[in-house]
């Protein structure tokens, strides 16, 4: 018996097929019972045959299902009314444009200056950075009237805001903002160096770092070791120009009564030059023999 060959591939309705299958199964079981031993192969064949038959039916069912799904998709795609699509797509275009513009506005942050329009004028945000580190931001709210005036700001009190405003605000707003930017970045850079010195190189300091709020006058005593001997050096850094992050005046003196030997005098002079040309924390990194004392993260800077 070859049940597979007697049935048609496309099959009939479900009920009929299943009933037929059942009949076939019982037939097979009966034949299996009747013919054993040498009839084994024949039984195997019929099992396989039944299986093939079942699988074919299942496959056809699934094929039909997939076809239907595809038809559904095509139908729905065709059915969207053209008018509605046009209008909503205009909205989508506007929305995409809006998102793009918002992103571009955000991008201005990286120029160091960003801002937005207010009801009375403009709110400018000045960003600061030093040595690749992005630091604090400060806001200046300008009211656009004659004369221009500052309604509100977050600039620290020791930055000469009034002086800069008196010089440039009425004649050249751009110049006013850039001058303020220079002062704030100078301050942020000096503060960063002083903070790093205090946090990362405390082991070198003999006594606290003395600093003013503007961080343009720094004074500290530090230990220097050379060939088994150790000395205390006092450094005084003055930043006369408030827009710079390297000191304009440096004095390194020896703490002690004895005069310095030539090699120590050389050291003292080289330190003076180092402080004049390199940022504080980099100078101390070189004192530490170039090792990076990276025990803690830089201090708190939110923006």
């Amino acid at each position, binding site marked *: 018996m070859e049940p597979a060959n007697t049935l048609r591939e496309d099959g009939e309705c479900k009920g009929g097929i299943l009933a037929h299958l059942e009949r076939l199964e019982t037939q097979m079981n009966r034949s299996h019972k009747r013919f054993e031993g040498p009839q084994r192969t024949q039984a195997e064949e019929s099992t396989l045959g039944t299986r093939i038959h079942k699988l074919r039916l299942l496959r056809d069912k699934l094929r039909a299902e997939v076809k239907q799904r595809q038809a559904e998709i095509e139908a729905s795609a065709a059915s969207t009314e053209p008018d509605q699509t046009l209008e909503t797509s205009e909205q989508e275009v506007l929305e995409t*444009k809006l998102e793009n*513009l918002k992103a571009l506005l955000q991008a201005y942050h990286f120029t160091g*200056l*960003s*801002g937005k329009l207010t009801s009375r004028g403009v709110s400018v945000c000045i960003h600061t950075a030093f040595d690749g580190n992005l630091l604090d931001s400060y806001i200046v709210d300008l009211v656009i009237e004659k004369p221009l005036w500052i309604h509100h700001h977050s600039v620290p009190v020791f930055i000469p805001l009034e002086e800069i405003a008196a010089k440039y605000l009425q004649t050249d707003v751009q110049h006013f903002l850039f001058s303020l930017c220079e002062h704030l970045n100078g301050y942020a850079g000096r503060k960063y160096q002083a903070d790093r010195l205090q946090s990362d190189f405390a082991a070198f300091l003999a006594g606290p770092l003395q600093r003013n709020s503007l961080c343009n006058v720094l004074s500290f005593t530090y230990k220097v070791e050379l060939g088994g001997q150790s000395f205390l050096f006092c450094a005084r850094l003055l930043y006369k120009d408030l827009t710079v992050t390297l000191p304009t005046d440096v004095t390194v003196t020896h703490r002690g009564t004895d005069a310095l030997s030539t090699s120590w005098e050389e050291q003292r002079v080289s330190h003076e030059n180092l402080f004049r040309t390199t940022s504080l924390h980099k100078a101390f990194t070189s004192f530490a023999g170039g090792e990076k004392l990276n025990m803690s993260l830089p201090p*708190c800077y939110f923006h």
Partner: protein
Amino acid sequence: MEAERAEVRALEAEIAALRRACEEPTAPWKETAKAKKSFKNIYQSESERLESSKDLRRQLGHLESELSLLSTLTGISIRKYSKKTEDLTSTVMTEKNIKKVLQRYKLSGDCHMVTFQLEFQILETQNEKNLSSVVTDLNIIMEPTEYPELSELVSRAEERRDLFMFFRSLHFFVEWCEYRKRTFKHFKEKYPDVVQLPEGATSSCLGIQNASQPGFELVIVWRIQIDDEGKVLPKLDLLTKIPQQALELDKKNVIESAPLSFRTLLGVLGIEASLESLIKLFFNTKE
């Protein structure tokens, strides 16, 4: 037998594939877009749709004004911007409440006629106490210009990973170049016979000479330099060319002190007036 077994295997494979096809959602993005649209269509009437378009346009207008404002303030026009975020937090870090995120940015735009493209990375580290943002890489690509000072600026900015300095210096440098160009052009147009621009429109020097007084020439060299800290400084110098005879008549050493006097003049009159007065010298000839 073998043929039947092969057929079984083939059928089983096909069934598995068909089952997968049935399980797959119908092009998911289409579904959500469709869902969005139908959602909107259900809850929005015709007039509401028009209103939201109007509202969007108003918002767009507002944003465009803000962009125009920033472009004027910074001197920089940003045209394209993209950002990609990568979370670098390891499990060890999460245990210690530390979060590390790497942000990759691409930015392009122009400053007057100078175009630039920037690619940079910012590493954000957040622990319990504070948040730090560090620029870990900066690449600047600029189209070649006739200003060699700009390529110096680019390498300095890249080395220091100093975004802000790059934009500030670029803005002021270009502004000064444009001002120099305008000023030189103004004088060339006003006194075409006396004024020469040897290097053309973007010349850094201006020559003054009078055909009726051959041998006498004044050259004003106007350099625009960017110093180490990124400050843009214009530097003007005066060069003189005088015939030997005239030099011998110069008892008061006016010629020798001319460059210094020019500097003083600049301080008093400013650039334009100083240049004008020097050019006028060449008109008061036959006396």
